[in-house]
C-alpha cells in the first residue's frame, strides 16, 4: 500500500468565473477567468504551475482539452490530462493532483473546469454541423444507442427511476424529495452569486412542471454558464501562501456501471465504497463532518447520499430531510450550502467544482455570515457522474 497523502496536500487557491448567464464569454475565457482568480487568491504565478487538469467541455470536437487550456493560459505543464467522469470528475482531479504531488510528478497543480451550456458561446462550429434541434438531439442521446436510446430515456429519467424505487422500498414521499429542493434553494437565496435566488415552498416545487415522474422541474439541475479553478500543492509549500490552506484529509472513488440496465441497485450506490475509503484515509466518520456538499444533480441524490455516507440508516434519508431542519445551515449536517446544481450554477460537468470551492470558503470562513456554518473545521464533498456511474469523495479540513 502506498503512502497516504492525508494532511500533506492542500487546496491553496480558489477562483470562479462569471457565472449564470454569460452571453459574451466562451469556455476558454471562462477557464481563464477562473484560473486567474485562483492564482490571485493564493498569490502564485502561472509560472509556478507545473500541472494542469481539466474536465473537458460538452463540445465533442474539443480534443486534447487540457493541453489547449494550458496553451491558452501560456503554461507548459509536465503533468496534464483531461478527465471524463461526469459530475465525479472534479474530485477525481483533486485526488489525481494529490497523487502526482505526492509522487513528485508535479508541485503546483491547477484544476480548472468551465463550460457554456446555457449560452453555447464558442459552439459555432458544432452548431454549424448540426441544426439547433440536432444539438439537443445529440445531448439527449444518452445511453446505449441500440438498447436504451430507442426507448426515449433522459438523464432525468435515470434519477426518476431511482427516486421511484426509493419511494417504493422505503416509503419516501414526494414531499420529502421537494424538501431537499426547498432547503437547497433556501441556501441559494443567501448566496449573492446564485443563479436562482428565490426561495420556494414544498407546494411550489411539487406544482412546478412535471419532467419525469416523480421529478418536477424544481427537483432538477438548472442550466448555466461558468466554472471555477483550484490550486493544489503540498501542505509544506502552502505555508508561505496568502490564505489558510484547506488540507485534503481523505479521498475515495468507485465506479458502478455506465449503462443503466447494468446498475444492479439504484438506491445503494458505490458512494458507500467511495465514502468508506475517504473516511478510512482521514480517520474520520460522518459524526465528524460539519457540512456535506453532496452532488445534488436531482433532489433524490442527497437523500441517497445521507444514507450511503452514514448520516442515517439506509431507507431513512426521506425522514431525515423532513422539515429541513437537520440539513440546513445551523442544522445537524448542512448540505449543499451554496445552492448547488439546483440553484447556484450547473454548467454540466464542471458544476461539481463549485461544491469544492464552497467547502474551501466555508472552512476559511469566507462566506456571508448567515450562510456560514459556525465553527466549520471538516467537511465532506462528493461527486457523481452519469447514471450513478462514477462516485468520488473528498474530506477536507483546516487541521
Amino acid at each position, binding site marked *: 500500500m502506498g503512502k497516504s497523502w492525508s494532511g500533506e496536500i492542500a487546496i491553496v487557491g480558489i477562483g470562479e468565473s462569471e457565472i449564470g448567464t454569460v452571453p459574451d464569454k466562451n469556455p476558454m475565457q471562462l477557464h481563464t477567468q477562473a484560473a486567474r482568480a485562483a492564482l490571485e487568491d493564493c498569490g502564485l504565478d502561472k509560472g509556478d504551475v507545473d500541472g494542469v487538469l481539466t474536465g473537458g467541455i460538452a463540445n465533442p470536437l474539443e480534443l486534447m482539452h487540457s493541453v489547449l487550456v494550458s496553451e491558452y493560459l501560456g503554461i507548459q505543464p509536465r503533468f496534464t490530462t483531461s478527465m471524463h467522469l461526469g459530475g465525479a470528475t472534479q474530485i477525481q482531479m483533486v485526488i489525481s493532483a494529490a497523487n502526482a504531488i505526492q509522487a513528485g510528478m508535479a508541485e503546483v497543480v491547477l484544476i480548472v473546469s468551465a463550460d457554456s451550456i446555457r449560452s453555447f458561446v464558442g459552439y459555432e462550429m458544432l452548431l454549424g454541423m448540426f441544426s439547433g434541434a440536432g444539438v439537443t438531439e445529440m445531448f439527449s442521446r444518452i445511453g446505449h444507442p441500440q438498447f436504451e436510446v430507442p*426507448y426515449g430515456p433522459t438523464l432525468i429519467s435515470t434519477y426518476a427511476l431511482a427516486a421511484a424505487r426509493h419511494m417504493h422500498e422505503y416509503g419516501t414521499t414526494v414531499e420529502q424529495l421537494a424538501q431537499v429542493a426547498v432547503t437547497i434553494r433556501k441556501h441559494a437565496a443567501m448566496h449573492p452569486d446564485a443563479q436562482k435566488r428565490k426561495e420556494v415552498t414544498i407546494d411550489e416545487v411539487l406544482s412546478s412542471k412535471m419532467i419525469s*415522474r416523480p421529478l418536477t422541474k424544481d427537483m432538477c439541475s438548472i442550466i448555466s454558464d461558468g466554472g471555477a479553478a483550484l490550486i493544489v500543492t503540498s501542505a509544506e509549500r502552502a505555508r508561505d501562501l496568502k490564505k489558510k490552506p484547506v488540507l485534503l484529509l481523505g479521498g475515495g472513488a468507485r465506479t458502478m456501471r455506465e449503462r443503466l440496465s447494468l446498475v444492479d441497485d*439504484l438506491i445503494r450506490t458505490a458512494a458507500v465504497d467511495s465514502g468508506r475509503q475517504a473516511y478510512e484515509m482521514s480517520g474520520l466518520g460522518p459524526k465528524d463532518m460539519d457540512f456535506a456538499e453532496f452532488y445534488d444533480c436531482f433532489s433524490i441524490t442527497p437523500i441517497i447520499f445521507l444514507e450511503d455516507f452514514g448520516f442515517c440508516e439506509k431507507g431513512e434519508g426521506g425522514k431525515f430531510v423532513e422539515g429541513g431542519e437537520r440539513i440546513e445551515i445551523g442544522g445537524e449536517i448542512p448540505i449543499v450550502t451554496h445552492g448547488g446544481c439546483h440553484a447556484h450554477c450547473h454548467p454540466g460537468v464542471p458544476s461539481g467544482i463549485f461544491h469544492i470551492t464552497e467547502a474551501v470558503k466555508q472552512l476559511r470562513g469566507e462566506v456571508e455570515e448567515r450562510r456560514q456554518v459556525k465553527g466549520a473545521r471538516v467537511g465532506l464533498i462528493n461527486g457523481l457522474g452519469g447514471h450513478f456511474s462514477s462516485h468520488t469523495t473528498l474530506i477536507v479540513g483546516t487541521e
Partner: protein
Amino acid sequence: METYEKPIPKPDRETRPFWEGAKQQKLLIQHCLDCGAYQFYPQAHCRGCLSDRLDWVESKGTGCVYSYSVVHRAPSTAFDKDAPYTVALIDLPEGCRMLSNVVEVDPEEVRIGMEVEVVFGEITPEISLPKFRPVQGRTGSGRF
C-alpha cells in the same frame, strides 16, 4: 403508415443476432458457455469471465418492473407525441435487466413489481423493438 422518426437501432457485428431474433418475435439474450452467466445487453465477450464463447438463447419473455418513470418532457421532438410515456427497467427471469417502455397500459396504472411480458413492435422491415406490456394485457392505446 406514418414515418418512424424516433432513433432506430443499427445492428452491428455484436448485436445482429439479437435484432434478427426480435424480427421473429424472440427476445434473445447471451449465455456464456464457459461460466454459465446470462447477459444483456449483448457484446462479444462475457462480462463475467471475458470468454468469447457465447450462445444466444431465448429469454422466457416475461419480466417484472424494477422501477419506472413517466416521462413528460421527452428527450427530442420525435418522442414529443408519445409523452407522457413510461420508461422502465424490467428484470428478466434469467437475471438480466432491460431498459424499455411499458406499453398497452395507461402510464398511471404501471407499478413497480408489475408482471409484464415482451411484445414486439415492427418499426421498420428490419427492426422490431421489444417492449413490455402487463401480463393479461389490458387493451390500451396500442400506441407503440
